[in-house]
């Protein structure tokens, strides 16, 4: 059980668009909201209204600043959650078989009834995708909302992960990366989607879509137009009079 499957029929995952993400944290909230009432133990918080609130989350959004050698700095919002790796390092290290990758769709899950809470899977993950629930002592991670995507009781448009459904800018795309004709596969090919830390050999399913090239104003002399403003009318007359005094 704890060994990785040699092949998965589907490769369900996310394509995350770093160009459109505005860092609103709605996906973080939606993820927390859905996952503290459905699959497994609720994602607990410690001291939520006190001086030092802390809690388990399955999705975090960082903000980074890139300073290019020339031109203005750029802010990039960077969502970080489980990448559902093909060669997931968190699975084989598990001593109990609680951590596993599904053959049918490639989703990496934790069987919370078998988890002893040793934390070794979190140590093995380079992406910080796993957080221990301090309340129940089991490892929590993104389930790709496995209790939504196959849920016939939900309207069809809701059968996507909560983070994807809630994203107001459409920066998160859900689909099957094993199908070259899927929306996410085409998007990844068109936009040059990339893997995080590929040198660690984890072969992530989730892809990150880089920023698009943007137009930029001519910054060579941004204040130059202000130097020869020709005032006209009343302002022109005032300009002339004041200049003579």
């Amino acid at each position, binding site marked *: 059980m*704890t060994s990785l499957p040699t092949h998965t029929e589907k490769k369900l995952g996310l394509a995350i668009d770093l160009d459109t993400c505005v860092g609103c944290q709605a996906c973080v909230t939606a993820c927390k909201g859905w996952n503290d009432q459905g699959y497994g133990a609720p994602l607990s918080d410690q001291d939520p209204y006190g001086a030092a609130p802390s809690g388990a989350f399955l999705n975090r959004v960082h903000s980074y600043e890139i*300073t290019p050698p020339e031109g203005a700095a750029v802010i990039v919002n960077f969502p970080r959650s489980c990448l559902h790796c093909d060669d997931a390092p968190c699975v084989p290290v598990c001593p*109990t078989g609680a951590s596993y990758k599904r053959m049918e769709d490639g989703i990496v899950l934790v069987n919370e009834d078998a988890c*002893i*809470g040793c934390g070794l899977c979190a140590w093995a993950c*380079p*992406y*910080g995708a796993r957080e221990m629930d301090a309340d129940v002592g089991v490892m929590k991670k993104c389930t790709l909302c496995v209790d939504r995507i196959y849920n016939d009781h939900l309207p069809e448009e809701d059968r996507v992960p909560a983070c994807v459904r809630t994203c107001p800018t459409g920066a998160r795309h859900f689909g099957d990366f094993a199908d070259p004709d899927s929306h996410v596969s085409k998007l990844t090919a068109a936009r040059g989607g990339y893997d995080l830390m590929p040198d660690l050999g984890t072969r992530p399913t989730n892809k990150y879509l*880089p920023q698009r090239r943007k137009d930029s104003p001519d910054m060579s002399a941004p204040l130059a137009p202000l130097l020869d403003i020709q005032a006209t009318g009343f302002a022109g007359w005032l300009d002339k009079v004041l200049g003579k005094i």
Partner: protein
Amino acid sequence: MHPAPSVIIFTVLAGIGFGLLAFLGAGYPAPVGWPAFFHWGLGYSLAVGGLLASTFHLGNPQRFLRAFTQWRSSWLSREAISSVACLLALAPVALSDWLGLGWPRALGLIGAALALLTIFCTAMIYAQLKTIPRWNHWTTPALFMAFAGAGGAILAGQSAAGAVMSALLVALLLTAFRIGDGAFAARAQTLGTATGLGTIGPVQGAVRVFEQPHTSPNYLMREMIYLVARKHIRPLRSIALICAGIGPAVLLTILPPVAWAFATIAAVHLIGAFAARWLFFAQAEHVVGLYYGQR
């Protein structure tokens, strides 16, 4: 990495305990009667005490039996099985030594091999992690084996073997310090490469954290980001080298081979072993720290 006391106590005590059991199993020394009872009792107490300490950091220790199931892939599971197999295999040998039953030694040799295998499995739990460059190196199992060998030899009263293993331990500690200090940099991972933002996309350049994703530390930061004050590293390394290796090597050569001498040397060695193991965890840097702009 956060230097959790339970894991430090576990690895140090279980290491020295299984080291002693390996020597006793192999018949060096082969005490009889009550000395055998105390010798074996010490080995079992350290090994079992260490294993029990390791359960203190588990979220759900009552499910520990499940940890014996995944030996095909998991070093932690292999360690669990190997440690229990060792303790079971050596039990009749200990009984035979204590009561003078004269049962054959073969089981003792098997038990000694299992003790060494247990220490190797413990080390591989850490050495297998590509996410922690300092640990992901052959020096990790070599160091764990050397600690067990030196500590085990001291407790087993083996002066010559203990002196040699202690000297070897010094050499390995120095090697691990030197290689370990450059291990993270050697992987050439930065915030820019970890996010791809430094090298992929139309705007490339120096990347820094603009705003953290959360306002107070989470599990990841508490568990995997730990900064040791640089001024403390040097004295701790000196304590580790002098107490764990240099001191025992010298004392084993000059002191008479009597019980109080070995007890004193073992106490000195343990101080060094705890200092070295604290540094082993506290100085290890996990790549996830990059996303937080911290190490």
